[in-house]
């Protein structure tokens, strides 16, 4: 994560309407950077899950969207920050199907599978920050499944 930062945008997460705005912003930025449709959809879906977590479990917060550039390759880094109660047991929270609410319990673990890089930082009583990063056309990691 030492790639130079091109630009940073901050989007508030405080209501259901804000979630829609987060999705639109991420989709727009991903499309502008040249992510293909599958990557765009995965990134937007992961963003939707994490933003909703910040809203429902963290009582709201914000998303920081950073455009990265490494040589000619562009990436998008999304940080979801809330100042909620934090996650008590991170390993448990990352388990498929585990939920404290009424959801499916797939949001956090699912979001991790949808993106290339995933980092979770949570301190009980202080809040949670989840950061995900993805790169256009799968760089810098080796290509897999390319035709």
């Amino acid at each position, binding site marked *: 994560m030492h790639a130079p930062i091109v630009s940073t945008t901050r989007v508030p997460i405080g209501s*259901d309407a804000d979630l829609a705005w987060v999705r639109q912003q991420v*989709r727009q930025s991903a499309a502008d950077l040249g992510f293909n449709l*599958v990557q765009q*959809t995965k990134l937007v*879906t992961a963003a939707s*899950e994490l933003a909703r977590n910040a809203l429902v479990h963290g009582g709201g917060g914000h998303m920081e969207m950073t455009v990265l550039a490494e040589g000619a390759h562009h990436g998008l880094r999304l940080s979801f920050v809330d100042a909620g109660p934090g996650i008590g047991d991170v390993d448990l929270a990352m388990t498929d199907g585990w939920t404290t609410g009424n*959801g*499916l319990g797939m*949001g956090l673990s699912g979001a991790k599978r*949808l993106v290339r890089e995933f980092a979770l930082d949570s301190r009980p009583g202080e809040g949670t920050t989840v950061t995900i990063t993805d790169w256009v056309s799968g760089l810098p990691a080796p290509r897999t499944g390319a035709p």
Partner: protein
Amino acid sequence: MAEHDTAPDTAKELGAFLERRREQIGQRWADAALFRTVFTVSRDEAVEAGKAVVDALADVARSGRLEDVDAPGFGTVRDQLGRMAAARARAGYTPVQIAGEVADLREPVTALLQTELQDADDVWVHACAQALAVLTATLRLVIMETTVSAGEELIERQRQQLLEVATPVINLWDGVVAVPLIGTLDSARSQVVMESLLEAIVDQRAAYAILDITGVPTVDSLVAQHLMKTVAAARLMGAECIVSGIRPAIAQTIVHLGIDLGSIITRARLADALAYALTQQGIVVSPRPATGASQR
């Protein structure tokens, strides 16, 4: 200031003054941008609108509630003030600029007031001018309030309209209903979808219900959960539910997300879903044989 001994008197004096001079004030206000640019049919129209506001202010002044935005006197012109502010907003003016224009209305009135009271006691004149300042400040608040509440009302109305507009239930065939879902499927929307679908299943005695998600841009775990609940509810009503319109990108995302839609019948296209429903009912749709074509 309101506690000042002369306050009720100055308010009454101000009310009487506004009533006496409504014609002159109306004439002067008709030239102010706030009236001139909104009431464009004729100058008389602008003067009449101005006089209506003067009458309202006089009424408020007489009631002594100079600082009260809810004073009954404002009731008669509230709509008109809202329209004026809305018209200025549409013309590209910011709320601050509109508030400035309202504040500018005070100046011609103050001038008239001073002319009329030039022989009166200085303290009295000052008190009257103060009362007028308070009254116009209240008028400004009333106008700002109507602007904001008009905007909120509009947004709420549009939100309600969206809920209804975006969830039509279509009768595709005898016993087959379909809902084309469009846009964000939040909790409120999915509740409306579920209700109208279940109603349609009863009304149409449908055995098959198709949920088409071609128009849903993002299927995350919450949307998937809403879909599953709707499917389960339809099943309880005795209808089989088919989810169609699953695009390749959505399919890959659902798999990576780890959501198991295995218990739901899914099809790529709405046409495939309809074909499935018809086949299940034993209905065969075949092309009409071309005339003159030999049977092979």
